[in-house]
């Protein structure tokens, strides 16, 4: 019996976007190295070598095009990496051996496959991990070459239909950009965590998704029946009739609950004793604003501007920044729009494949976000000018990400001032008093939030990174993910420190991390005094429901009780007691 005959095969992954979806597998594959055995008659050998050389030329052109883009985006040192790829393609080890194999009567595809196999085997024997891992670069180049040999176009997600559940190893921003307009029922991927690009896109499109399934791509075939359960983080392959019916019922129940929550849309997020908070949305691009307003948000607490950089081939111009941000600002008036300056680097860059060669041993603690911007001030200034100009079209604020010391805010403000001076000279209008905020996501500034609060107009807590950095835990790593605990005493104290520091300086404190959109934490955060919650738009009705059901007095009591806890058991006890109060 093959696996395809079995019903109800359950795979467990990470729940990335809630909801359930029933549909058919759309297997979205990367380029692949396939072994094609074909004998070439003697009189065709020359043609076969020509075919290989033509494929090499096309691959080289593709690599060089990538190189130009990298150069524009990140500067010469990154583009050097693409140099290495071109050299791999022209390497005598690859070329001479492949030609020798073709001369023996093998196809070009067979020759490339065999040569790559031989080289990767040799790399596997290297002790040093860095050099051993370079085999992936060679395989990447070989895969591109193979694609050109077979004359295949790079696949896109444009062929999807409304029944499709996209199954792939991983989805990059360039993959998903072609998908925005298309109906997809769900996502299931081999890799990724709760904050991976796939998860963010799925949440913004309100499509159920399960990520981190490890090897789902090797277990499914195109068109297979599949259920994605984004609530539990499981995927069911070949579901039985009964399972399908159960899930259909579950789907209907959820749709009904959703309808009830939607009724809250035009009601304020006010506690029963009258304290009102701002519920904002996190977005990646202007198309999401409609959904944001539909869910009753009164602000954009986080506009992730890096999406602009990731879905295109050239660096965005000041005009493009301006028009993009203006669109959002106009649609959101009179509500605020907090634009986070680019948070490129780390995972987002590696997803583009730029970090494959690993210039940085530890990109999460490396050159990213504000650090990258201060190193490349022109790149930063172009964006700042675009934001400044958009400020005449709405209620726009600027937020700097990954601040780890006060000097970074001052340096960023210096560049902002230069941008203002240039705009004045150019006669372009902007809001002279535009508000500046710091994202608090590095423990160093959380601890000294009182110092930061004096320097900025507002602060917004990025809990995803704050918790990871504080707990020293990568929550995508399943062996340690349990340590990622938003209610850990250290996290609660940090949150209190930040919020109190903000309020003492008369500044508002928001939160744009995932914690802000999780109903189980809402009351504690309310009790700690959080002024603004920003989350994925679909979560807003749920959070509003929680806030409207509690009094500020009870919320404060809960927060105080939680702050006294020293371990997980005590925390669970307090929460349980509160629930049944």
């Amino acid at each position: 019996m093959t696996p395809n005959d079995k019903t109800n095969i359950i795979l467990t992954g990470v729940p990335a976007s809630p909801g359930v979806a029933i549909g058919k597998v759309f297997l979205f594959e990367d380029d692949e190295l396939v072994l094609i055995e074909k004998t070439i008659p003697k009189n065709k050998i020359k043609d076969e070598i020509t075919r290989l050389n033509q494929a090499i030329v096309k691959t080289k052109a593709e690599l060089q095009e990538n190189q130009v883009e990298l150069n524009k985006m990140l500067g010469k040192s990154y583009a050097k990496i693409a140099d290495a790829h071109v050299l791999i393609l022209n390497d005598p080890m690859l070329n001479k051996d492949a030609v020798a194999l073709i001369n023996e009567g093998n196809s070009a595809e067979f020759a490339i496959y065999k040569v790559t196999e031989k080289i990767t085997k040799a790399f596997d024997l290297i002790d040093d991990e860095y050099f051993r891992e370079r085999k992936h670069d060679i395989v990447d180049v070989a895969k591109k070459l193979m694609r050109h040999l077979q004359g295949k176009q790079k696949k896109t997600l444009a062929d999807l239909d409304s029944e499709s559940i996209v199954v792939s190893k991983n989805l990059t921003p360039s993959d998903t950009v072609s998908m925005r307009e298309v109906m997809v029922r769900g996502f299931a991927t081999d890799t990724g965590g709760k904050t991976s690009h796939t998860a963010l896109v799925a949440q913004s499109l309100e499509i159920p998704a399960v990520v981190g399934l490890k090897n789902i791509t090797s277990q499914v075939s195109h068109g297979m029946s599949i259920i994605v359960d984004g609530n539990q983080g499981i995927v069911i392959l070949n579901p039985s009739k009964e399972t399908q019916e159960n899930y259909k019922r579950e789907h209907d129940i959820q749709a009904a609950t959703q309808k009830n929550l939607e009724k809250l849309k035009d009601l304020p997020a006010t506690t029963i004793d009258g304290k009102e908070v701002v519920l904002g949305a996190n977005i990646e691009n202007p198309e999401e604003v409609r959904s944001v307003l539909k869910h009753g948000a009164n602000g954009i607490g986080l506009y992730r501007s890096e999406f602009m950089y990731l879905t295109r081939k050239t660096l965005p111009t000041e005009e493009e920044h301006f028009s993009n941000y203006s669109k959002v600002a106009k649609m959101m008036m009179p509500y605020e729009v907090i634009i986070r300056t680019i948070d490129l680097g780390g995972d987002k860059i590696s997803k583009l494949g730029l970090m494959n060669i690993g210039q940085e041993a530890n990109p999460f603690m490396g050159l990213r976000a504000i650090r990258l911007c201060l190193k490349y001030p022109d790149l930063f200034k172009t964006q700042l000018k675009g934001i400044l100009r958009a400020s005449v079209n709405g209620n726009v604020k600027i937020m700097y990400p990954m601040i780890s010391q006060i000097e970074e805010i001052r340096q960023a403000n210096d560049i902002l001032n230069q941008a203002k001076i240039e705009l004045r000279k150019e006669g372009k209008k902007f809001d002279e008093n535009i508000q500046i905020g710091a994202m608090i996501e590095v423990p160093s500034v959380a601890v000294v939030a009182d110092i930061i609060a004096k320097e900025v107009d507002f602060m917004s807590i990025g809990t995803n990174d704050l918790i990871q950095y504080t707990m020293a835990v990568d929550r995508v790593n399943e062996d340690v993910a349990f340590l990622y605990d938003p209610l850990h005493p250290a996290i609660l104290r940090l949150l209190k420190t930040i919020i109190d520091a903000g309020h003492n300086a008369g500044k508002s404190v928001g939160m744009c991390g995932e914690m802000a959109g999780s109903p189980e934490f809402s009351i504690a955060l309310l009790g700690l005094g959080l002024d603004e919650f920003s989350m994925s738009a679909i979560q807003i009705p749920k959070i509003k429901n929680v806030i409207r059901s509690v009094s500020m007095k009870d919320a404060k009591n809960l927060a105080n009780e939680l702050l006294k806890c020293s371990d997980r058991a005590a925390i669970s006890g307090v929460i349980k007691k509160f629930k049944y109060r």
Partner: protein
Amino acid sequence: MTEKKLRVINKLGLHARPASMVVQSAMKFQSTITIVKDEYTVDAKSIMGLMMLAAANGTELLFRADGIDENEAISKMEEIFNNGFGEEI
């Protein structure tokens, strides 16, 4: 034939970027240039060969050039090695 022992002095070793630099420089010469490390001999014009040497900081490599421009080739290699490939040492 000209020979010269050269040491990898940059912190990160002969990783992809410096390896590209060596290959690009070697390709400018007509001479055959080989690099010997322990029992391995690789072509200096092959980036994969260079990376397979896994030459970390402090590794000593024997360069051999044979051809009409062998002396220039070796002195060019010496120059980029002694410069630490323009990277942090």
